[in-house]
């Protein structure tokens, strides 16, 4: 029975997540159009709502071109690594409290792993392989440069990311994401307790997802399309989807760590039944995540790209000392308060 519940939960969460990710693509296209004073895709279905389906149908029918000089097996494997890893990270993110459905107490989190944060950091490191292998296996100069750049960039910012998270771990005293969310009950959100850590983590998250101020791996003017230059058809779609899945998952992680997760302030003072409170909390979580995804998109369409040396200087000479300083300040404050 427990196994069945788990599998149903996994399938439902995976389906909902893929649906949201597909519509995040549409959201980005409509929002960027609004920012650039265009209309954007609005022909397929009402207000373009069927556009993701049309895109997938088009990409399925596209010929798949694998260059003769490329390493065929790794070329096929890399997008699978990229997308599967991006999706799996969501498995440890709690998206709600316990909810009672048909007499079963269902925990709204797929796996309550006791080393949650380490698991997330480990999977983000695995994500590097997807990009680097694609760059190497394509045997194309642009792709190789994009892959090497992305790996150097991601490992540089992973340090500040790990150090920024440590502040949150110290406050909650646990690596479990569930406990971290419960420690932020009411208005004790970590964004208020850890402002420096929040800014560091968000910056590192932008670099880890290769989003615009840091999208050097696919800088169009110099590298054509970066690491996925030689990809077409469904494999290109896998890369495209994994970029948006990464964005969605990092927003979910930022929400969990800094914006109170599924906690909705004052929800208990309205007198709803437990079931409805559970539903409201899930929607509260989704609202926070979608708002943060919109923030990712707005940043992309308003800020120009860094140069590579600026990117490296920011990562190594500024973010790293600042995050270590944040760690020491957090430690001192906890010591003084206890």
């Amino acid at each position, binding site marked *: 029975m*427990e*196994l069945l519940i788990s599998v149903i939960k*996994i399938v439902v969460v*995976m389906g909902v997540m*893929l649906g949201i990710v597909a519509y995040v693509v549409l959201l980005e296209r409509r929002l960027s159009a609004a920012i650039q004073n265009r209309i954007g895709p609005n022909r397929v279905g009402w207000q373009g709502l069927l556009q993701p389906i049309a895109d997938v149908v088009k990409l*399925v*029918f596209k*010929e*798949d*071109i*694998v*260059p003769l*000089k490329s390493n065929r097996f790794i070329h*096929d494997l890399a997008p*699978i690594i990229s*997308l599967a890893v991006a*999706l*799996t990270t*969501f*498995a*440890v993110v709690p998206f709600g409290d316990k909810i009672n459905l048909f007499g079963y107490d269902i925990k709204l989190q*797929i*796996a*309550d*792993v006791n080393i949650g944060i380490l*698991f997330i950091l480990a999977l983000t490191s695995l994500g590097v392989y997807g990009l680097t292998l694609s760059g190497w296996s*394509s*045997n*194309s*100069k*642009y*792709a*190789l440069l994009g892959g*090497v750049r992305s790996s*150097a960039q991601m*490992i540089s910012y*992973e*340090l500040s990311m*790990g150090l920024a998270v*440590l502040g949150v771990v*110290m406050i909650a*005293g*646990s*690596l479990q994401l569930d406990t971290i969310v419960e420690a932020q009950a009411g208005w004790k959100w970590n964004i208020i307790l850890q402002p420096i850590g929040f800014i560091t983590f968000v910056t590192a998250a932008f670099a880890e997802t290769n989003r615009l101020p840091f999208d050097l791996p696919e800088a169009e003017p110099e590298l*054509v399309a970066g690491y996925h230059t*030689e990809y077409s*058809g*469904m*494999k290109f779609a896998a890369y495209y989807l994994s970029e948006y899945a990464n964005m969605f998952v990092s927003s979910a992680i930022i929400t969990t760590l800094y914006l109170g997760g599924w906690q909705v302030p004052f929800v208990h003072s309205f007198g709803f039944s437990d079931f409805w409170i559970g539903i409201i909390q899930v929607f509260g979580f989704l609202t926070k995540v979608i708002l943060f995804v919109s923030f990712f998109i707005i940043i992309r369409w308003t800020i120009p790209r860094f140069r*590579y*040396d600026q990117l490296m*200087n920011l990562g*190594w000479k500024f973010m*790293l000392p600042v995050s270590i300083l944040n*760690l020491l300040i957090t*430690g*001192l404050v*906890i*010591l003084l308060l*206890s």
Partner: protein
Amino acid sequence: MLTDFGKVFIFFLIGGLFVAAGLIAAWVIRPKRWYPSKLSTYECGEIPVGDAIVKFNIRFYVIALIFLIFDVEVVFLFPWAVVFKNLGMFAFIEMLVFLSILFVGYAYVWVKGDLEWDKPAPQLPSINSKQLKISTPQTTPD
């Protein structure tokens, strides 16, 4: 009894299956009309020159080495952060010592210029002797 990592594994399998199913479906449906020039590596429409797997900049390697050292540091900090509230002052001073040792390494790397991505151009040896002075032919623009 399914452990939490078992659930993560099922999640990973279903995610991987979804991606593989998409790729296989596309493989069945899509047209396959290849010819040699379509399968050549993209180089802005030119005939590709040489191989792409070439030597690349040593700076990437140095960054990877520095990353390795600091990543191990972060791993050591995680258990410390979890039990920090229980240990108090002792843990704080202990970690200050640990961080200051690492800081020496960080300062060394910085002074050595390995964090500098934009390195100054190498100074080529030049000959100052007047007799050996070689005049480069001046080309006037047409």
